[in-house]
């Protein structure tokens, strides 16, 4: 899934994180350390879930000189492409 689609999930997750933080902070005896820890975890999860969905496209160059089993070699660079449907 490209980032252009994943960003909608990111926005929803960010909203949920901030809203939870606000709601928890309105409670009597709210623990700001805990709220901050939860907010940081929720934001990190939101950004991570978004980022791993990135699609990758590369232009690939292979230099001349690729050997073969009978002793020949390519005389010019090869061109191609690389793709990935997610990041690790």
């Amino acid at each position, binding site marked *: 899934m490209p980032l252009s689609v994943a960003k909608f999930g990111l926005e929803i997750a960010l909203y949920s994180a901030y809203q939870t933080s606000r709601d928890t902070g309105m409670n009597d005896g709210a623990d700001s350390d805990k709220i901050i820890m939860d907010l940081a975890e929720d934001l990190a999860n939101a950004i*991570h879930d978004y980022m791993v969905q990135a699609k990758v496209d590369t232009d690939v160059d292979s230099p001349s000189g690729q050997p073969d089993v009978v002793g020949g070699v390519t005389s*010019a660079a090869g061109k191609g492409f690389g793709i990935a449907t997610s990041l690790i």
Partner: protein
Amino acid sequence: MPQTLAASKILLMNELEAAFRKSRDDGMQDGADSDVIIETLADEMGTAVHNYMKEALVVTTVTINPGQISTHPTFAVGNYTAPGPGTGTGEISFEGSNVDTLKKDFETAYKKARNEGKIDNADSIQIILTLSTDVKNATDKFALTAKVNTDVALTGGVPIIGYVTPVGAPVPSVSLPWKGTGEGKLS
């Protein structure tokens, strides 16, 4: 090599937590300057996001277009008749100016939220909604500036047609493993 996003997520969480904690602590001081606090928060959030994203490990499936020409001192010329498969392994990187833009965008988002919160009868739901949209836009804009670089390993095995002996007999061959490089972007 990058350490992977899964591994660096812990670092992101810890750096965000430190940034928010500092922001809270600074805000509790007498005469706290909210402009300075937000600028510091945005700077630390931007650094945290950058530190996290640049640890992405990229693994691509590579295809080299057929049609390469191979030469042999005795068997003349052969043609690569099929796509060449391989794997690219690498990382993403960001220009410093784009990291600066991310930090500025975070700063703008948080200052807007602060300013909207100062208005009488401020609607916290709307403020959070706007903040979420602005932080999302800043993050997305930054991620799309990533540059991808990979080292490519071609597996070989591509049939090569066209070699002939001096008396005209065909000489079948296949390519051996080789190398390459890839450059690209995220989408």
